[in-house]
C-alpha cells in the first residue's frame, strides 16, 4: 500500500534542511517563508488527508519499506492515521503553525534566527513522526527526536550557562524515562515478537486481564516510566520548570502544547495494553493526581511568570494522566486539545508581556500592564478562564469530563482534583492580577508596548479557540478508538468543580487586588508551609543530594581519576613512553655523520659476505 501520508512530516523536514543549510545566507524573510510555509503546507496536507479519509472509522495505514528484518523481529516503516492521531495531528500542526507565526515577532531581535526556525521545523518533523508512527520503534524515533529538539531549544541561548544546564537537565532526566520505554519495548519483543501496535495489542488482549502484577503490567509500567519523563510526571517532572530557560515560543510549543503531551498520547495509544493491566492504570491515576496536586501547590508561590505556567503545565499534564488512569482516555486526549489552546495562549501571552518589558519575567516587577497591553490582557484573560474551568471556556469541558470520570472511579480522587482546580484558578489569576493590575513596579526606563501583528494574530486565534474549543466534540469523535465514554453528567458535581474554580479566582482577587494585607497575614501564619512550597518542596535539592552528587562525585573519583586517568591514559601514555625509551636506545646509531653511516654499510656488507661464506651460500 502506498500513499502520501509521509508528506506530512516531510514538509517540516525539508524546511529544517533548507533553513539549516541555507538559512544563514538567505536572510530573515526567506527563513520565515521556508519555516512557516513548510508547517502551513503540512497543516494543509493534514486537512486534505483527513478530508479524503473521512469519516476515518478505521485506521488508515501506509507501509513504505521494511526497516529491520531478523528472525525474531520485523519492523516496517509504517505511518497510520486513525481518529486519535488525527486529533493530535491537527493540534500539532495547527497550534504549531500559530506559534511559528508568533515567533517571527518574538524572535525578531534575537541572534541565531535561522537556527531557531530550523530547530523548530525539526521538532515538528519528529513530533509528526511520533504521532503518525504505527509501531513502537518508529514512535520511539520521534520520541527521541523531540527530546533532542527540546534540548537544543532549551539551550538556545547557548551563551547563558543556566540555559545550557537546563537543557542538559531536560535531556538527562528524559533519558531515565526513555530507558524505561526501551526496556518496555524489549519486553514486548520478547513477549509478543513484534512492535507493531495492532499485533502487540491483539496479543495483549488475548491474554487474561492481570489482577496480579505480571508481564503485561511490567511492560505497561515501563512504558509509563517513559511517559513520566516526557510528560513531566512525578518523579521525573523536575526538568520542565527549568526548561523555561528556552525562548518563550519554545515553551509554548514544546513544553506546553505538544511534546509534553507525547507521554499522554503514548499511554492513550497503548490503551488496550493498559486496560489489561488495571494495577498500572491505577498507578497512572495516582501519579497523575499527585503530580497535578503538587505542581499546582508549587505554582501558588512562584514569582517568575513562566515558572508559574510551567508548574501549571505539569499540573495539567497530571490531570490528563488522571483521566487516562481512571479509564477516561477520550477525556484525557480532549484535555490535551483544550490545554494546547489555552496553555499555548498563556505562554504566548506571557511572552508578549516579557517582550513588552524587554525581558522582565519577575511578577513582582510587573503590574498595571492592563492599560499598556489591552490585547494581551484580554487574550490572557480568556486563557485564564479556560484553565480555571469556568464555563463556557474550553478547559471547563475537558477538565469536567476528567473529574467526572475520577468521581466515578474513586470519590477521594475527585475531591483532590477539585482542590487542585481551585489552586489552578488561584495561581493563574494571581499571575494575571500581579502582572496587569495595581501599579507598575518594574524598571521605569522600560516603556511597555503592545506586540506586533505577527504576535497579536496568533494570540487572538488562540483566544478564540480557548473560548469555544470546548464545544469541539472530541470525546464523541474518539469513540471508535476508545469505546463509548461511560459517564452520566451529574450536575451537582459540575457545580462543585466550577465553584472551586470561581473560589480560587475570587481568592486571588482578594489577595492581590482588593485586600493585599490579607496576603501578608496568610503568608506569616503559614510561614513554614509557605517556605516549603516556595522552595518547591526542596525536590531539586533532594535529587541533587540523592542522585546527582553521588553520580558526579563517583564519576570523578572512580571513572575519571580511577578509570580514565589511571587505566586509559595510563595505557596510552605507557605505550608512548615505551616507544620513546626504545628509540633512545637506537638513537646512538643515528649520528648524522655520513662516514659513520658508511662504516655501518661496510660493516654490514662484510658481515653479510662472511656469513654467506660460512654458511656456504656461494657455490
Amino acid at each position: 500500500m502506498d500513499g502520501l501520508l509521509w508528506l506530512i512530516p516531510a514538509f517540516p523536514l525539508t524546511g529544517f534542511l533548507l533553513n539549516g543549510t541555507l538559512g544563514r545566507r538567505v536572510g530573515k524573510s526567506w527563513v520565515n517563508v521556508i519555516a512557516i510555509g513548510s508547517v502551513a503546507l503540512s497543516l494543509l496536507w493534514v486537512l486534505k488527508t483527513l478530508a479524503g479519509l473521512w469519516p476515518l472509522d478505521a485506521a488508515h495505514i501506509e507501509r513504505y519499506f521494511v526497516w529491520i528484518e531478523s528472525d525474531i523481529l520485523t519492523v516496517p516503516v509504517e505511518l497510520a492515521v486513525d481518529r486519535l492521531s488525527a486529533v493530535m495531528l491537527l493540534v500539532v500542526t495547527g497550534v504549531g503553525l500559530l506559534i511559528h507565526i508568533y515567533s517571527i515577532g518574538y524572535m525578531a531581535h534575537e541572534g541565531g534566527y535561522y537556527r531557531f526556525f530550523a530547530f523548530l521545523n525539526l521538532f515538528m518533523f519528529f513530533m509528526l513522526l511520533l504521532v503518525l508512527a504505527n509501531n513502537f520503534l518508529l514512535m520511539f524515533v520521534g520520541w527521541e527526536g523531540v527530546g533532542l529538539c527540546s534540548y537544543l531549544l532549551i539551550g538556545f541561548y547557548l551563551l547563558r550557562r543556566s540555559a545550557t544546564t537546563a537543557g542538559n537537565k531536560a535531556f538527562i532526566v528524559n533519558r531515565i524515562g526513555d530507558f524505561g520505554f526501551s526496556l518496555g519495548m524489549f519486553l514486548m519483543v520478547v513477549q509478543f515478537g513484534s512492535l507493531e501496535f495492532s499485533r502487540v495489542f491483539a496479543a495483549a488482549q488475548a491474554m487474561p486481564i492481570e489482577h496480579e502484577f505480571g508481564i503485561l503490567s511490567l511492560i505497561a509500567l515501563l512504558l509509563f516510566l517513559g511517559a513520566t519523563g516526557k510528560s513531566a510526571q512525578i518523579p521525573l517532572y523536575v526538568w520542565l520548570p527549568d526548561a523555561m530557560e528556552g525562548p518563550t515560543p519554545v515553551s509554548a510549543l514544546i513544553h506546553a502544547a505538544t511534546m509534553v503531551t507525547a507521554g499522554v498520547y503514548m499511554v492513550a495509544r497503548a490503551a488496550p495494553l493498559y486496560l489489561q493491566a488495571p494495577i498500572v492504570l491505577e498507578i497512572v491515576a495516582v501519579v497523575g493526581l499527585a503530580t497535578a496536586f503538587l505542581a499546582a501547590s508549587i505554582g501558588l508561590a512562584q514569582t517568575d511568570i513562566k515558572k508559574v505556567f510551567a508548574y501549571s503545565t505539569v499540573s495539567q499534564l497530571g490531570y490528563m494522566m488522571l483521566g487516562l488512569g481512571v479509564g477516561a482516555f477520550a477525556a484525557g486526549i480532549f484535555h490535551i486539545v483544550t490545554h494546547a489552546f489555552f496553555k499555548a495562549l498563556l505562554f504566548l501571552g506571557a511572552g508578549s508581556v516579557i517582550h513588552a518589558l524587554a525581558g522582565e519575567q519577575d511578577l513582582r516587577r510587573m503590574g498595571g500592564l492592563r492599560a499598556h497591553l489591552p490585547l494581551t490582557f484580554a487574550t490572557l484573560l480568556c486563557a485564564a478562564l479556560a484553565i480555571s474551568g469556568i464555563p463556557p471556556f474550553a478547559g471547563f469541558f475537558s477538565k469536567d469530563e476528567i473529574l467526572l470520570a475520577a468521581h466515578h472511579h474513586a470519590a477521594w480522587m475527585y475531591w483532590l482534583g477539585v482542590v487542585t482546580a481551585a489552586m489552578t484558578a488561584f495561581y493563574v489569576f494571581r499571575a494575571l492580577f500581579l502582572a496587569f493590575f495595581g501599579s507598575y513596579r518594574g524598571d521605569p526606563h522600560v516603556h511597555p508596548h503592545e506586540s506586533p501583528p505577527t504576535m497579536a494574530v496568533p494570540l487572538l486565534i488562540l483566544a478564540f479557540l480557548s473560548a469555544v474549543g470546548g464545544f469541539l466534540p472530541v470525546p464523541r469523535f474518539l469513540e471508535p478508538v476508545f469505546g463509548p465514554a461511560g459517564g452520566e453528567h451529574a450536575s451537582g458535581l459540575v457545580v462543585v468543580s466550577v465553584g472551586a474554580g470561581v473560589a480560587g479566582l475570587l481568592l486571588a482577587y482578594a489577595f492581590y487586588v482588593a485586600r493585599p494585607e490579607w496576603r501578608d497575614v496568610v503568608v506569616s501564619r503559614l510561614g513554614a508551609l509557605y517556605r516549603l512550597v516556595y522552595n518547591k518542596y526542596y525536590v531539586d535539592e533532594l535529587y541533587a543530594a540523592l542522585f546527582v552528587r553521588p553520580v558526579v562525585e563517583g564519576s570523578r573519583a572512580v571513572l575519571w581519576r580511577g578509570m580514565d586517568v589511571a587505566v586509559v591514559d595510563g595505557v596510552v601514555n605507557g605505550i608512548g613512553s615505551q616507544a620513546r625509551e626504545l628509540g633512545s636506545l637506537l638513537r646512538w646509531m643515528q649520528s648524522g655523520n655520513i662516514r659513520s653511516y658508511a662504516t655501518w654499510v661496510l660493516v654490514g656488507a662484510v658481515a653479510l659476505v662472511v656469513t654467506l661464506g660460512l654458511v656456504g651460500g656461494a657455490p
Partner: protein
Amino acid sequence: MNGVPLAWYLTLSVILFSLGAAGFLIRRSLLTMLMCVELMLNAVNLSFVAFAYRLQQVDGHIFAFFVMVIAAAEAAVGLAIVLALFRYRAAVEADEVGMLRL
C-alpha cells in the same frame, strides 16, 4: 687461458676497492669522497670485466656498462648536491652537514 692470470685482476680490484672504501671512510672532503666512490665502482667494474673475459660471457660487460651509466648519473647528482651545499653552507666537509639530526 694465457697472459695475466685472473687472480691478479682480482687482487688489483680488491686493492682498488679497499682504497676507495678506506678513502670514503677517512677523508672529510665531499669531493674526495665522491672520487672514492668512483674508485670503488671502477674496482668492481674491473672484476666484472675480468670475469667476463675469463668465462667468455657477455654479462659482465653489460654490468660494467650499467655501472658506468650509474656512476655518471651519481656523479652528476652528487656534484650538484655538493655545489648546492657549498652555496648554502660555504662548506664541502661531510662533518659539517648534520642538519637533519635532532
